[in-house]
């Protein structure tokens, strides 16, 4: 019964997405046609560029999305909870970074996990590092970044973002703990 309901829900989701996409394709088509009547030259070159980018995106997106799906089934949320809650110190930081880069869900899924960890008295800095890495340094995202912005850009951004996230984590921990002592 439960799986039936879930199946229907999934089909519904996919159907809605496809409808929405078709709606977008039709409206984009109409707008492009109208623009073509007004500015034929620009539209021809625009479509040329769009086609190039479209093809480039198709080469990488299916792999990235399947990778995210695979991570979702292999890395249960409870695992993150279990490991991040216990480990502190340098090992804790490394673990937070590692678990954050795994290609799982969007940021709003990470908030409840982070809240749960804080309730369990995990170190604030570790939780914040996990959250920061989860938000901006995910493996699939980085592969797309390398493809469209180059290895150098991605590497520099990765390194300095990571450093910033660690600093932010410790700064907030300091501020929060200080204010708690006062109260």
């Amino acid at each position, binding site marked *: 019964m439960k799986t039936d309901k879930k199946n229907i829900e*999934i089909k519904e*989701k*996919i159907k809605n*997405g496809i409808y929405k*996409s078709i709606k*977008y*394709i039709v409206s*984009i088509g109409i707008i*492009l046609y109208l623009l073509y009547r007004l*500015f034929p030259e*620009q*539209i*021809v*070159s*625009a*479509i040329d*560029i*769009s086609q190039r*980018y479209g093809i*480039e*995106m198709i*080469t*990488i*997106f299916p792999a*990235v*999305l*399947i*990778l*995210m*799906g*695979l991570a*979702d*089934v*292999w890395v249960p949320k409870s695992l993150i909870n279990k490991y991040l809650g216990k480990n502190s110190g340098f090992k804790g930081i490394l673990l937070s970074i590692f678990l954050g880069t795994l290609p799982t869900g969007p*940021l*709003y899924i990470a*908030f409840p996990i*982070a*809240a749960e960890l804080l309730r369990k008295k995990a170190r*604030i800095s570790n939780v*914040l590092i996990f959250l920061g890495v989860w*938000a*901006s340094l995910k493996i*699939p*995202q980085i*592969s*797309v970044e390398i*493809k*469209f*912005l180059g290895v150098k*850009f991605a590497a*520099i*951004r990765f390194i*300095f*973002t990571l450093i*910033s*996230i660690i600093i*932010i984590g410790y700064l907030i921990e300091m501020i*929060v703990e200080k*204010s708690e002592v006062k109260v």
Partner: protein
Amino acid sequence: MIVVIINGITLSLLIFTIFKNKTKAKKALIMALIKAVNLLPMMLIIIVLIGLIFGFIPPDMIKNYLGSNESILQIIFASLFGAITMIPSLVALPLAGSLIEAGASYTPVAAFITTLTMVGFITLPVELKELGKKITVLRNVFAFVFAIIISLIIGVLM
């Protein structure tokens, strides 16, 4: 190169999963399909937008507004734009790449991407509810400030 690597990794993991556990493999593929379908409308818009940027906006203008004559105002504007928009980063990255190709400099593009991922205006209610006011405010303010620093460093190093 990265395309070959990521496709190779995904394919081998997928084959491994299929052999190991067929239901898991099926579930993963369904999840990927749902994500794909959800991303598709946004992706179409971005692809068309990239074309229109190249077709209509003269490169001089992009150079003028997003080019190397960096002002702090330009970077703050790019950071704010990244903080308030909610484009999935997977889709925003190709757009960022196209802006660079069209003549934008790395600093504002880096500012945009960094705040897009680190600061979340739209997700603020969820964050407030889950993490409380203090952590949420501190996290977003620090993230915004550091995003500007990161983008300045990227601008210097690129």
